[in-house]
């Protein structure tokens, strides 16, 4: 290699190295290509924006260290995720963020637990920002896993809180996708409705094949003739749009309680047909905006990424809480940071108190039930004019569910 080539190479690489060694690197392992890439890419932008806006522009952590998000594409596959996890560890990254799909999360959490047991000198921390399989903070919990999203059962606890208050709803129908998440949603719905409204009749508890239903009209015919006054579903993506459209087309005028009926094209497609009918449980706030901090943050995000949405508000919590824990621990090493994260309390951009429960490493936060509408919308979804407006807030105390988690904590 000639001197000049060498010089150029050094010139190119040197800034990257010096930068990298200084920064706190977070590996973002999620789908950036393939079927689910729309969701993954959207979330990646939210992570990058949060790191830049909430940490790097404010003097960083530990007196000046920046956050750097390293995107690793797992193609939504559990196998690929383990390869990417190894790669991240190989590059010396100590903090892993992953969220899309509970199937992937189950693989990652196992891999992290085993790796940390075998390599105590080289541990990693796993921040799960979105995978909501309750098992991850129950039977499968361990010290190195922290979840920032309310799991399927907590969300159902919040939804049923609101449903139980509706005196006029006496008959309800549950429909979902036929896999672990759909079943977890249905089981939680049956459990909580049984406790909160024993008089409420569950007319149907139906599972349909995931991603294979051409037309939901036959299901809706059945739901409608059953006389249901409300519908609960955990459906997402095309299955949510198809179901929602079929319900509206049939002229059913009942509330539909959902987990994921917004953003990534769903809001635009439901449009005015779903107005006032679709309700969704989520963390954070869309409309009205409770604080100036959140409004400024959301506006700045839309200014930078006009075609994307702040679809996962928990992402800014992940970044802020992590920064806080690192400062509190005085180090960015996984063990002190994990210890600092246990039981940590935090005030979000929206001005809400949240805390990371020590027993199971589950973040507890107030949840909102919002309605899909175009009235009183400041921040819409898919640039469609329609968005989510908060109807009910479920305080943190009402979201506290029990856990079966028994974790062992490392001594050193």
């Amino acid at each position, binding site marked *: 290699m000639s001197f000049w080539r060498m010089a150029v190479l050094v010139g190119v690489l040197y800034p990257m190295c010096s930068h990298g060694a200084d920064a706190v690197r977070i590996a973002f392992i999620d789908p950036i290509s393939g*079927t689910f*890439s*729309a969701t993954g890419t959207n979330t990646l932008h939210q992570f990058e924006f949060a790191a830049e806006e909430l940490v790097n522009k404010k003097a960083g952590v530990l007196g000046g260290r920046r956050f750097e998000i390293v995107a690793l594409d797992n193609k939504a596959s559990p196998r690929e995720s383990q390869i990417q996890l190894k790669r991240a560890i190989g590059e010396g990254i100590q903090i892993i963020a992953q969220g899309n799909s509970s199937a992937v999360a189950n693989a990652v959490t196992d891999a992290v637990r085993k790796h940390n047991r075998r390599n105590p000198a080289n541990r990693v921390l796993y921040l799960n920002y979105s995978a909501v399989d309750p098992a991850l903070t129950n039977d499968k919990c361990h010290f190195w896993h922290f979840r920032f999203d309310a799991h399927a059962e907590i969300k159902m606890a919040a939804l049923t809180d609101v449903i139980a208050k509706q005196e006029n709803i006496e008959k309800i129908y549950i429909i979902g996708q036929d896999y672990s998440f759909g079943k977890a949603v249905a089981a939680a719905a049956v459990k909580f409705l049984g406790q909160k409204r024993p008089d409420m009749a569950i007319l149907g508890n*139906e*599972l*349909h*094949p995931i*991603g*294979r*239903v*051409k*037309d939901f*009209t*036959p*299901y809706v*015919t*059945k739901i*409608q*003739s059953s006389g249901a006054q409300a519908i609960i579903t955990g459906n997402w*993506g*095309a299955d949510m*749009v*198809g179901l929602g*459209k079929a319900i509206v*087309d*049939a*002229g059913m005028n009942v509330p539909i309680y959902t987990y994921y009926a917004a953003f*990534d*094209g*769903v809001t*635009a*497609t439901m*449009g005015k047909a779903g107005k006032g009918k679709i309700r969704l449980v989520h963390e954070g706030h869309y409309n009205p905006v409770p604080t100036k901090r959140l409004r400024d943050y959301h506006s700045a995000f839309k200014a930078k990424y006009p075609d994307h949405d702040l679809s996962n508000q928990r992402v800014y919590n992940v970044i802020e809480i992590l920064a806080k824990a690192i400062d509190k621990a005085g180090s960015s090493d996984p063990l002190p940071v994990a210890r600092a994260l246990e039981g940590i309390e935090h005030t979000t951009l929206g001005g809400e108190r949240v805390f990371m429960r020590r027993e199971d490493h589950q973040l507890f936060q107030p949840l909102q039930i919002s309605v899909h509408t175009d009235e009183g919308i400041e921040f819409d979804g*898919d640039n*469609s004019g329609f968005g989510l407006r908060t109807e009910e807030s479920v305080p943190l105390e009402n979201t506290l569910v029990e856990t079966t988690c028994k974790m062992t904590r490392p001594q050193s």
Partner: protein
Amino acid sequence: MVEIVIFSTLNGLVTGLLLFMLASGLTLIFSMMGILNFAHASFYMLGAYFAYSVSLFLGFWPGLIVAPLLVGVLGALVERYGLRYVHKSGHVAELVFTFGLAFFIEELVQFAWGKETKNYQQPEILDFPLFTLFGQNFPAYKGFMIFISIAIFIGLYQVITRTRIGLIIQAAISHPNAVSSLGHNVPLIFMGAFGVGTALAGVAGVIAGPVLTTFPGMALVLGSIVFVIVVVGGLGSLTGALIASLLIGLLQSYAIALEFAVNDLLALFDISFDADHFLNDLWTLSLPQIAPVLPYLLLVLILIFRPTGLLGKRET
């Protein structure tokens, strides 16, 4: 119960007729050229996406005309510059070609239009309930779907049985060499048939897009079921395709609506099992759960007992 029967019949009719529009093109291509066009449903998806893009500028109705034409021309080009060369290497090569084409179109659609669901809506003029029965609406748009499908069936049937072109097409299906010796341009007929077949898929896409949502997976959802219809109906038979489409549409619609489980069947014979029986999953299996399997079960049964299909005359 009456309302379930009525609406399930209507739902089955709508689904069945939609499937027919796809199957009619596929069976035409299959019977004429012997090509099992795996990319057929992809042309259906292209129809929906083209119509969506046109509707952004000109509204729904121009899309209904323009999109199928575009898809038809694209189909004809694929035949002329793709399949015709692959044809020389035999049927397996053609099969692999269309298989690859299906993936190619899916990626292309994601590349051009993105991965999220598109906001493709039905025209406002049809946005009202046609009639209301037992409190359930039957949307006017679905009535429109039924109308279009039946019109296409009648038109196609007339062309194939009553016109000179139809005569040549029918002859080209059974005796391509004889037709060629008589001075007809068989490759041109093939190209035309492929174009018309894909255009029909395009029409199906245009009118299904607003109801079944326009997203990159829409070809996959419908792809395999169309082959079932072609085989069940019998190769080359338009009437057979219609009967098979309606049969499968109604079968699925009823299977989802009727809440029967194996338990109920056994109860008729006074047999019952404990809830913790190790085969309990089997005893509680209900009709809605096996609904997606039924068309394929029908396919297997037809292939065993009547390999020519319901109205088909030959085996291929």
